[in-house]
Structure formats: structure tokens, C-alpha cells
């Protein structure tokens, strides 16, 4: 069961609904009694908006009973780390405000990724640097696949660069935690379309080649209902130009939906054949905006399939 992991990283191609899945998974985890936090790392704060909360910031905000949200801000995470490292808020402040340090951290590739993943890791520890209560489950609403890989790889890169010393030690611990399948699970969200399916298969390969990690679960979002049978489609095509203009538009729309559902089935089959990870699905919701009710519905579906 993926929810037994301490840390769950939710990634996937851009625009597939990672935030929605992370939120639904968070609801599910909290409902099952786990103290849960969902972290956003892209500074978009979309998660809180789904629950009608605003300005969550770097702090922990309770969105629902047992479900918290954190938006990880790299500068704040860096300050927390320095404070812990130097065991002094004053020294951390001094370094944090020095121009030299500013230049180095702003310009050196991967520092942002490292402190971000470091903060996420810290949330998943029994004893946290900030002294907060521990979480049973930490869910990361991670960036799209390419950047998510960079995020997961950053600790190892810095462990290698530093070799010895405090950075090497800490980056090494984070790297081991991320790559321990008993502690960290990866969920890849996809859509049942050509490119997201290809990107999922590609991610699985690269995660395994580069980091020795596996995807624990593929969640396919936006799967259309099997509303129309092939027989229905034949009947509809046979109607020709009967009916009013609006009725014809409705019939055309039904045929498009039928065609899309068929194409989706093909892509789902391909995904199931090409991905090693188990594949589960979530329904397409014909709702203009997703709100709490829709999230609950999706979390029920996740519970049935995970």
C-alpha cells in the first residue's frame, strides 16, 4: 500500500492534474487517520485554493481535519537549514543576508532544488528541525517530470560534490531516504493521451536508470465514461442531418466523445503494456471547477483502486 510510505512524491507531465491527485490523496490519507501534509514546491498555492483557503505561505495550514498544507519557499527553507546547521539564528541571518552567499545560492544550479527537497525530507522525519509535530504521511505536489527528476537527483549531486563535511552527510541521508522504497513512494499522474503516456513510460525508465527508483503507482486522470457503445455510435452516425441544428450539434458532440473514449482506451492499454508500475484510473469530471465535493469523490476512487 503506497500510503504506508512516509513520503509520497506526485509527479507527471505538466497539466495532467498533479495538484488535484495530491489533494485527493491527502484527503484519503487524513481520513484513514494519518496526520498528513501536502507540500507544494512550485510556489503556486493552488492546493489551498482548492479548499477555499488563501495565503498559506511557508507555514503549516490545516485544510481539513488532519490534513495540512505547506508551500515550500526556497529562501525560507534555506534559512531554516542554516539556522539548524549553525545552531544560531543570528549567524544564519548574517550569512543569509551576505551578498557572497546570495550570489552563490542564486547562481549555482540545483541549490534551490536541494533546499526544497531538504525541507520536504525534514517534514517526513520524526524529529524535525523546526520542532513541529511529526507527520505520518508527507505528500509532495512535485513539478513536472523533468524538474521532478532534478529535484530527486539534487541530494545525490551535492553529496557527490561535497564528498565530506556536513553537506555531504546531510545530502547523503536525504538521498538514501528518497531511494528507500519502504520510505518513499513515487506516483506518476498521466492522462490517457499519446504524449502523457509516453512521458510516463520515459520517466519510469529514467528514474530507474538514473536513481534506481521505481514508480509505485500510475494514476490516469480524466478517463471518459463508457457512455456510448459502438452500436450507439452507429445509430448516431445513421441519423444524417435529421433533427434541429442544436440536436445535430449534440449528436456530433456525442460522436466526438465516443471517439475520444476509444482513443483513450487504446492509450490506456498501451500504458498498461509498457509501464511496469500498476495503473489505476480516475474519472473525467464534467465540472467547470473542482471543489471539495469533487476532491472527496476522487479520493473515494483512489481508495478503491490504490
Amino acid at each position, binding site marked *: 500500500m503506497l500510503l504506508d510510505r512516509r513520503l509520497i512524491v506526485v509527479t507527471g*507531465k*505538466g*497539466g495532467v492534474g498533479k495538484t488535484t491527485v495530491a489533494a485527493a490523496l491527502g484527503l484519503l490519507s487524513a481520513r484513514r487517520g494519518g496526520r498528513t501534509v501536502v507540500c507544494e514546491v512550485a*510556489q*503556486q498555492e*493552488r492546493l489551498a485554493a482548492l479548499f477555499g483557503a488563501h495565503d498559506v505561505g511557508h507555514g503549516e495550514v490545516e485544510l481539513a481535519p488532519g490534513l495540512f498544507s505547506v508551500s515550500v519557499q526556497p529562501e525560507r527553507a534555506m534559512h531554516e537549514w542554516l539556522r539548524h*546547521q*549553525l545552531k544560531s539564528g543570528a*549567524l544564519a541571518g*548574517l*550569512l543569509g543576508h*551576505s*551578498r*557572497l552567499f546570495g*550570489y552563490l545560492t*542564486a*547562481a*549555482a*544550479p*540545483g541549490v534551490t532544488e536541494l533546499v526544497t527537497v531538504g525541507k520536504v525530507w525534514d517534514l517526513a522525519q520524526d524529529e524535525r528541525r523546526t520542532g513541529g509535530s511529526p507527520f505520518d504521511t508527507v505528500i509532495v505536489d512535485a513539478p*513536472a517530470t*523533468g*524538474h521532478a527528476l*532534478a529535484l530527486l*537527483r*539534487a541530494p545525490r*549531486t551535492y553529496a*557527490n*560534490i*561535497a*564528498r*565530506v563535511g*556536513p*553537506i555531504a552527510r546531510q545530502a547523503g541521508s536525504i538521498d538514501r531516504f528518497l531511494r528507500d522504497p519502504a520510505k518513499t513512494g513515487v506516483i506518476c499522474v498521466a492522462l490517457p493521451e499519446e*504524449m502523457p503516456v*509516453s*512521458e510516463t513510460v520515459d520517466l519510469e525508465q*529514467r528514474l530507474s536508470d538514473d536513481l534506481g527508483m521505481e514508480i509505485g503507482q500510475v494514476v490516469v486522470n480524466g478517463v471518459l465514461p463508457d*457512455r*456510448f457503445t459502438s452500436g*450507439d455510435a452507429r445509430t*448516431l452516425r445513421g*441519423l444524417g442531418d435529421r*433533427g*434541429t*441544428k*442544436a*440536436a445535430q*450539434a*449534440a*449528436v*456530433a*458532440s*456525442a460522436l466526438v*466523445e465516443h471517439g*475520444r473514449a476509444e*482513443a483513450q482506451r487504446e492509450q490506456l492499454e498501451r500504458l498498461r503494456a509498457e509501464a511496469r508500475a500498476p495503473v489505476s484510473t480516475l474519472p473525467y469530471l*464534467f*465540472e*467547470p471547477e473542482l471543489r471539495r465535493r469533487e476532491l472527496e469523490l476522487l479520493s473515494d476512487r483512489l481508495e478503491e483502486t490504490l
Partner: protein
Amino acid sequence: MIEDWLERKEVCICAGSGGVGKTTASAAIALGMAARGRKVAVLTIDPARRLANALGLRELGNEERRVDAGVDGELWAMMLDAKRTFDELIEWHAPDEKTRDAVLSNRIYQELSNALAGSQEYMAMEKLYELSQEGRYDLLVLDTPPTRNALDFLDAPRKLAEFIDSRSLQLLMAPGRMGLRVLGAGTNVAFSVMKRATGIDLLQDLGEFFRSFGGMTEGFRERAARVNELLGARSSAFVLVTSPRREAIDEGIYFHRRLKDAGLPFAGVIANRVQQAGGGTTRAALVDLCGEELGTKVYDGYEGVRRLADRDQLNLDLLRRRLGRTPLIEVPHLPDDVHDLEGLRRMDEFLFDSATPPSSRPR
């Protein structure tokens, strides 16, 4: 439309948040311009090989490849290898072989250039500049990397310059009084505190790494300035690709404002995958037409689609109000997923005013 936006343009930069169809739009623009007689190269740095996918090629390398698209002009495509491009850049800037080898074989260089996210943005801009200098194409279309912040790539040249800039490096190369004075009072303390935070070994290794960059810093800075010039030139055009979803629209509005503020040449917005629907009808009318069960299903499906279409139009209205006179092209959500040349050709009629010349029909 697109042909007007790109008249006398040599560089077209497609930007937008992830998942809006940026790669597909870039490829469709490139194909459309090639079909109208231009010699076009489309570049992507996407690690997920999406452009290759969209163009129906198995894989693209760090060199441009000709796409057999049956067009009047020429269509070329390439997918950037960030690491390879970084190496080439070092080879180009290094004053001699010894410096080149020292950098390329440096442990820290290898770790950083290989893996880390930022280097992709740097390299996309680099390659764009290089190809524009070579002048082998009438038009270059850049599909920007799917960055967390859709605008990161704008800062890429400046950040690269800063990274290698001597001011921050002087200190690490020679942490003596000279270096310290440049950074001002307090740096000496900062340096010793930093040692405590990172370990002295790391600082020494970094110092060695930066020393090996030696005389290349000036070249990098100059180059970064030229890349910025290229982005702001009259021969460049930024195109924003968005979906009609609210999150993408909000990001698009922000993006538009930032480009305008930066004085960069903004050509227009492509709203991709806009849900279309006809007028309303009744369940009774559809039951009448298709029977009880099927009529109800058709009605339910159509009502859902109409709700989505209404939402899309509301979001686009918001975008239009914010764009002012900036043109916007709507591309409908096509019945089939666009992932090959055939699909790209279907987008053509929405992106371009004039019909595709007959000779560019599929062979």
C-alpha cells in the same frame, strides 16, 4: 494571423506553463511557416522527447534533423542535449586546450552540467543564439523548457553570467583581501560562517573549479549580454501558449505583463484546446430523435460539454480584457489528440489565415 505575427521575424519563442500544448503549438507554427516556403528549425529542450513525439520521429539529437513533411520550404527539428551544449560552450570559450580539459574533467563541473535543472534553461538560450548567429534558417522556433516558473528562461543568460561572474568567484579563487573588498564589509565573517555550514573541503573544491574557469568569465558575460539583445530584438517574437483553464490563464496574464515590462517583443496569444459547443437543446428533442435511452445519454454528455465550453469562454473573456490590443487565436479542442504531422496540419487552419499551399499536402 501567425504569418502576420511572424512577418520579418527570425526568432519565435513559444512560452507558457506546462501541459498547455506548447510543444505541439511550436511544431504546428514551424510546420505552417515551412509550408509557406520558409526554411524553419524548431528547437526544444524538453527532456521528455515530446517534440520528437509530435513530429512522429523516434528521437532527435543535438543536431538539427530534416523532417520529411512534404512542404515547399524546409522543416528541421532538434532536441537539445543540455550537457552536450554546455560542453560545446566550454570548448568555444576556453582560451587553450589545457583550460578546456581542466574544466571538462573537473568533478564539480561534471556533476553540475550533467544533472541540474537550471542548466537546461541556460542551454536553450545558448543554442538559440548560436543558430541565429549561423543564419542558416529563415525562422527559428523555440519551445521553451517546461519550467516551474514559465519565465525562468528569461533570467537564464543573466544567471549564467552571474554564476561565472568574477565578483562572486574572486573570493573563492583567492579568498584574500582583494576579493573581500569587492563584496564589502562583513564578507570576511560571512566566509568563515559559510565554512562552518558547508565544510572547508567543499569551498576549496569550488575554488579550484572556478579557478579553472580562469579567463573565460569575460567571454561568458559578453555572450549573455548578446543573448539578451537577441531576445529583445525587433526580429524576435514571443508567443504565449495557454489553455483556457483558469490556472493557465492566470499565469498567462502575469507572463504577458512581465514581458511587456521587460520591453520584449510580444506577438500574441494562442489559446489551445478550447472546448466548442453549439446551441442548447432539450432532452425531449433528443429522445425524439434517438430514442429514450440513447437520447438521454446524448443530452447528458452534451450538457457537460456545454458547461465546459461556457467556462472556457468566461476564462478567455478575462484574458482578453487583460491583453488589451494583443491578438488572441483560439484553437478548438480537436476531436483527436494531436501527436503527429497529421494532427499538426489540422491545427494549421486555426493558426494561419491563408490555406495551406496544395504542394504541402501529405504525400
